[in-house]
């Protein structure tokens, strides 16, 4: 049974984290980081060729996590696999007891590190959710029956609270929910106001929302994200704090923890999703500082 689902349904403030598989075959660092989170987070997302850059496959890392006692969230993008391969990976995941699936459209191959790769996009996030529902009904997308028991998935997707125009984004969110999304993990949140504006709309759809937390590493990194990463808006006062900090990494952890506490204390969402992006070893420090 999905612990993530249990936590969300029992109204616990759920915490998920994220690990990216290595660009290679040595998983030890990632597994070590994940091990430190067992019992402290509900589940750990495994990214699927994040930023369209080649890494070991998400499913492989998910299986490793599952075997060491960390519940994985299997991220599946539509970028690299046709519906045949997506359904097949979902079935294989289920055979290993993996239930949590995060469906994403995926960054384009053109922005990644194997630019000549053919972008697939046979299914987008909505299509992957539809595929999951069909499999749960005991069939495949071609209308053929599966053998044996049907799989079970607890499926979610991403959301961008500061997407412009928000209406258009909410339309896609509603489609994802219609297609089977039960939870959303959002883009990084750095201030409560825009997030509240988003939640005012999104909350009524009834899906669980885990606010994205991306700890800052430096003022420069914050400015870079503001300029280049869609949906990220680090406010000036936070950038100033980062700039003045003697130890920016520690300050970034502190800022992340404060955001988590505010979200939790004001009950603005159902949990948080911490994306440390290359600094996974700091996640326990963020949890400590947030009192989680």
């Amino acid at each position: 049974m999905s612990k993530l689902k249990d936590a969300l349904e029992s109204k616990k403030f759920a915490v998920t984290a994220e690990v990216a598989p290595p660009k290679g075959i040595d998983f030890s660092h990632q597994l070590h980081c994940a091990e430190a989170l067992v019992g402290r987070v509900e589940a750990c997302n495994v990214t699927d060729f994040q930023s369209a850059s080649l890494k070991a496959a998400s499913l492989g890392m998910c299986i490793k996590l599952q075997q060491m006692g960390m519940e994985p969230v299997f991220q599946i993008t539509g970028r690299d696999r046709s519906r045949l391969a997506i359904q097949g990976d979902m079935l294989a995941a289920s055979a290993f007891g993996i239930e949590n699936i995060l469906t994403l459209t995926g960054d384009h191959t053109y922005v990644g590190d194997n630019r000549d790769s053919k972008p697939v996009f046979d299914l987008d996030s909505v299509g992957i959710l539809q595929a999951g529902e069909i499999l749960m009904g005991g069939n495949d997308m071609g209308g053929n029956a599966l053998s044996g028991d049907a799989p079970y998935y607890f499926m979610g997707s991403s959301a961008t609270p500061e997407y412009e125009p928000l209406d258009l984004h909410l339309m896609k969110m509603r489609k994802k929910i219609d297609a089977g999304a039960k939870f959303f993990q959002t883009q990084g949140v750095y201030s409560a106001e825009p997030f509240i504006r988003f939640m005012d709309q999104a909350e009524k759809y009834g899906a669980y929302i885990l606010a994205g937390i991306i700890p800052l590493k430096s003022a420069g990194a914050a400015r870079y994200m503001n300029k280049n990463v869609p949906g990220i808006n680090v406010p000036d006062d936070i950038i100033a704090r980062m700039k003045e900090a003697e130890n920016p990494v520690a300050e970034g952890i502190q800022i992340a923890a404060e955001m988590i506490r505010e979200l939790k204390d004001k009950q603005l969402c159902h949990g948080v999703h911490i994306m440390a992006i290359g600094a996974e070893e700091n996640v326990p420090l963020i949890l400590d500082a947030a009192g989680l």
Partner: protein
Amino acid sequence: MIISQKKPREELLAMLSGVKKAVLVGCGECATVCMTGGDEQLEEMKAFLEENGISVLASLVSGTSCNKLLVKKELKEYKDAIAEADCIISMSCGDGVQTVASNVSIAVYPANNTMFLGEVERVGLFTEACRFCGDCVLANTGAICPITKCAKSLTSGPCGGAKGGHCEVNPDNRCAWIMIYEKLQSLGTLEKLDIMTEPKGFSDSAYPRTISLRGSKE
């Protein structure tokens, strides 16, 4: 309109190595508009080839170089030149090259790269508009093609990648779904965004495709 571009001249010369005599065939339709296969380009090509030691025995701009029967008729008038030539250089889209080749028994080489089906925005400016998906969805998207104008061909709404209204893949392009949103808003039909569809099927675009209006395959 099929948009084509001239191949680099070095590539063309490499392709033609060993060729001494050639016939040029352009196209009076798209390639003329794209300035890749009209009268002027054929003349330029002739001058270029002759500078490089290839004599041009004949040159014609076909009325429509993707019309097999028409091309067959047009080429008949040049049969002596073709009989003497080492090859034909087709200055049209990839379809024209194949149509010409299916009518002769000598080699036919492409002078152009065929890029896309697009719009002539103004003289010399072409933008891709349709990817021949075989199941047109424009009715629900304000006549803006999400298959073509969205870099990921998304049919159920935008990805999260737009920044300042522009696409993550090529920031010179506006995000197709934001354009669709604005268009539907101006048409007063924003509710179309909520239409839930099944994932787009690709069996309609399995190629090569043949369509016959004559009840049987020609």
